[in-house]
């Protein structure tokens, strides 16, 4: 029932990164905890979109989903730790996988951060999408680049 209603609607998603927030007292902890904000509608159009900037609007249409997997690569985001870029794989209107294609590798701290942050990000992208929810409320997110990049990949996919 819900999906039928969604099929005649559309969703516009716009993402902007604002409000510089205090960093945590524990920088490594702040960097390694990342949450993915996924867009609203579980409707399923997945034809590859043109590249878009993270702050631009994307609009999803109402076409039916397809079962062939498609990859979308988010715009590279500059974080205080370096450049991060995320790719997601979409199948049947759901994120089936996400991976970082570019991430800081310079220092041992980078390795530490990436070792924990990126798997968390991947897992969350998949699990939150599979839950039947529109949005997530949680402890304040300041994950900056990680999320920006994932979000822009999602926006391209018009999920």
């Amino acid at each position, binding site marked *: 029932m819900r999906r039928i209603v969604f099929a005649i609607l559309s969703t*516009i998603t716009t993402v902007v990164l604002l409000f510089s927030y205090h960093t945590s007292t524990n920088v490594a*902890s702040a960097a390694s905890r990342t949450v993915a904000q996924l867009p609203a509608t579980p409707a399923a159009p997945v034809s590859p979109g043109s590249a878009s900037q993270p702050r631009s609007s994307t609009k999803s249409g109402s076409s039916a989903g397809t079962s062939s997997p498609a990859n979308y690569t988010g715009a590279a985001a500059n974080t205080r730790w370096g450049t991060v870029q995320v790719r997601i794989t979409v199948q049947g209107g759901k994120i089936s996988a996400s991976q970082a294609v570019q991430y800081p590798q310079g220092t041992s701290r980078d390795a530490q951060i990436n070792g924990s942050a990126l798997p968390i990000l991947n897992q969350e992208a998949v699990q939150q999408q599979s839950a039947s929810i529109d949005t997530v409320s949680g402890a304040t997110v300041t994950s900056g680049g990680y999320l920006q990049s994932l979000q822009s990949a999602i926006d391209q996919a018009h999920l």
Partner: protein
Amino acid sequence: MGMPISIHVRSADVDSSTVARAVEEAFDIVREADRLFSTYQHNSEVSRIRRSELEPAQADPLVGQVITVCQQAGELTERAFTDHLPDDDGVLRFDPTGLVKGWAADRAASRLAGLQGASYCLNAGGDVVVGGAAVEDGSGPESIWRVGIEDPRDRSRIAEVVELHHGGVATSGTAARGAHLYNPATGTFVDRSGSITVVGPSLMWADIWATALFVGPASLINRFSEFADGYRVIRQ
């Protein structure tokens, strides 16, 4: 670091210029708040107040408005909410950031509320405000937003789902940023697990209470029951 803010609009006509303009204006409201209140922008009014270069009375009227709300929030929560937080050197300085997010999100959302036949969801770094004109024509399923409450012990999980047509959902906890929530009564940062979510008509007040209940004494819940009419608490 910045805070991600996303807006979702459901409507039969999201491609219209009316929707695009409303979304843009909603973001303009948030950008304006960032410009005035950011503690990271050297020349924001709040940064200048923190350096004693600007008297609060001479600041933008919106800054005065926020200061007034900060005072109300401090009184209502028996000072569990504070607008004076330690800076990098541990010196207490004016910092209304914790309240401004909800305040700006509510303001931005009110711009979206005017859209005919549309419902919206604005997520500001994990705090959510939803609503829309669709509520008025019979509360169809399209106006229900399912807000997942993150499990603070396993952030890849959703602990609970709140369904609402209209209102705010704010969560306070240490899962995302470690011990960043300041307890003015002890002068320390709270470092305990779990989270507190408050749901109610205004995101700003939901956020104020979520933070106050997280850092404040257990007895503060009595104050909440007495004064926060229309709000409810979800503990994780």
